[in-house]
């Protein structure tokens, strides 16, 4: 499989009152086309900073990000970032939100058709004319994901997308995401602090160290979908990943 994303020796530090604070320290990784990578790490370790650099929102101090072999220095619709807090426009209807990123070359009826198609995929049929404040948190996430999918991005950058949802809704959204990815293959980078979520979704799980962060361990998840979360393999993987994060799951 071809390499989609190549990250070479990324470093980033921020200026603070107490001098420079190193956040990302020499991170290199490669993501294959169509691969699903989960990145887990302790909170505040620099996960989001890493992802912002990869999506082109933040220039690194050194190192570079290559997408399809070309250096990425600014955001592009080829890689859509879905963040924890969400960015569905509250002043647009669901349909208008889904049409937002669509190219101006398309006719209005084509845009509406695409928007309605993706509303259907994420289970929002019938809510096209609703405003975001009329929807629940889970539905808002669906709008966010559908809006990203509508522009057919090669890469989805997901920064703790489900962490604001309750456990049940978060589990449901994971299953929906897997269903969508089975239909339309995207390269996905998922940041999460939920180890189970990472194992449930990803082909590979990367564990980051505390700040300044670097990749501390990588775990392959070779289980076929649908994955049974209660299976011994998943449980063993979970224990191993937690251990590399410095948490003894058995003692807890």
């Amino acid at each position: 499989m071809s390499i989609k994303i190549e990250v070479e020796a990324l470093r980033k530090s921020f200026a603070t009152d107490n001098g420079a604070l190193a956040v990302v320290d020499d991170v290199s990784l490669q993501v294959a086309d169509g691969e699903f990578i989960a990145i887990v790490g302790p909170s505040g370790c620099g996960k989001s900073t890493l992802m912002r650099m990869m999506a082109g929102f933040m220039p690194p101090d050194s190192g570079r990000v290559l997408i399809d072999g070309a250096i990425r220095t600014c955001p592009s619709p080829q890689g859509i970032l879905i963040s924890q807090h969400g960015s569905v426009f509250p002043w647009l209807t669901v349909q208008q939100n889904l049409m937002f990123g669509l190219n101006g070359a398309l006719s209005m009826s084509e845009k509406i058709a695409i928007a309605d198609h993706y509303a259907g995929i994420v289970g929002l049929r019938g809510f096209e004319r609703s405003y975001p404040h009329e929807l629940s948190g889970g539905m808002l996430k669906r709008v966010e994901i559908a809006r990203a999918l509508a522009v057919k991005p090669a890469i989805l950058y997901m920064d703790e997308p489900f962490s604001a949802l309750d456990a049940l809704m978060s589990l449901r959204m994971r299953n929906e995401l897997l269903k969508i990815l089975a239909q339309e293959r995207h390269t996905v980078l998922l940041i999460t602090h939920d180890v189970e979520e990472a194992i449930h979704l990803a082909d590979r799980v990367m564990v980051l160290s505390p700040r300044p962060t670097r990749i501390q361990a990588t775990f392959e998840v070779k289980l076929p979908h649908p994955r049974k979360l209660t299976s011994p393999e998943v449980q063993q993987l979970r224990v191993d990943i937690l251990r590399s994060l410095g948490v003894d799951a058995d003692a807890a």
Partner: protein
Amino acid sequence: MSKLRQSLPGLAVIVLLLAAWWMIVKATRSVIFPTPWQVVTGIVELIRDGTLWRHIGASLGRVGSGFLLAVAVAVPIGLWMGWVRGVHDTLNPLFQILRPISPIAWIPIAILWFGVGNASPIYLIFISSVFPMIVQTVAGVHTIEKRYLRAAENFGVSRHTLFTQVVIPAVLPQIIVGMRIGLGVAWLVVVAAEMIALRSGLGYLIMDSRNAGNRYDLVIAGMIIIGLIGLMLDGLMRLLEGLKIVRWRYVH
């Protein structure tokens, strides 16, 4: 029912004030200060001979023109200042100096420039309502949440889409707040402006009633009508807050 109960204390205060006013006028046997009833008959007299509508029409016409002119100037300038740092830094110091100058202080210059026709009060209304609306619009642009701008950047939309679908709808609630403040100030100012040498308007009615035979019943009638129209204008602006496109700002 609960709405009625809510407005009862407010009504009670007004009724008490009217009663006290009546009793004091009776007790002091004032020949100049009118009783509430004399004010009512004064209003009826103004309605009968048609002068009331002429004065109200004249005042509203001036407020309408000056205010709409101010909206037409303040919104584009506010958006421009909010969006472009350099424009803000260039214009803001001047506006901050002009803003605290009472519109009343402009009266001599208005008369010098525009004479004693309609242009003077329209200019005064313009100058008094334009600055609060600029300030609110600029603040509106500055408080657009970064996540929305980031999303727009991510989708790589045109400048036109960015403005029509993100910036302007995001700022619209603040623009409406600015318009409410601006119209309130405009109504205050028109009455003051009409006290200077014009032959129509509610301000003129008040001054003329006093000068032509100490008709204090008509003075107070004019004041009460000004108050009631001001309340109605504010209510009209509040209706704008119910528009679907800005509803999102007022939920939660």
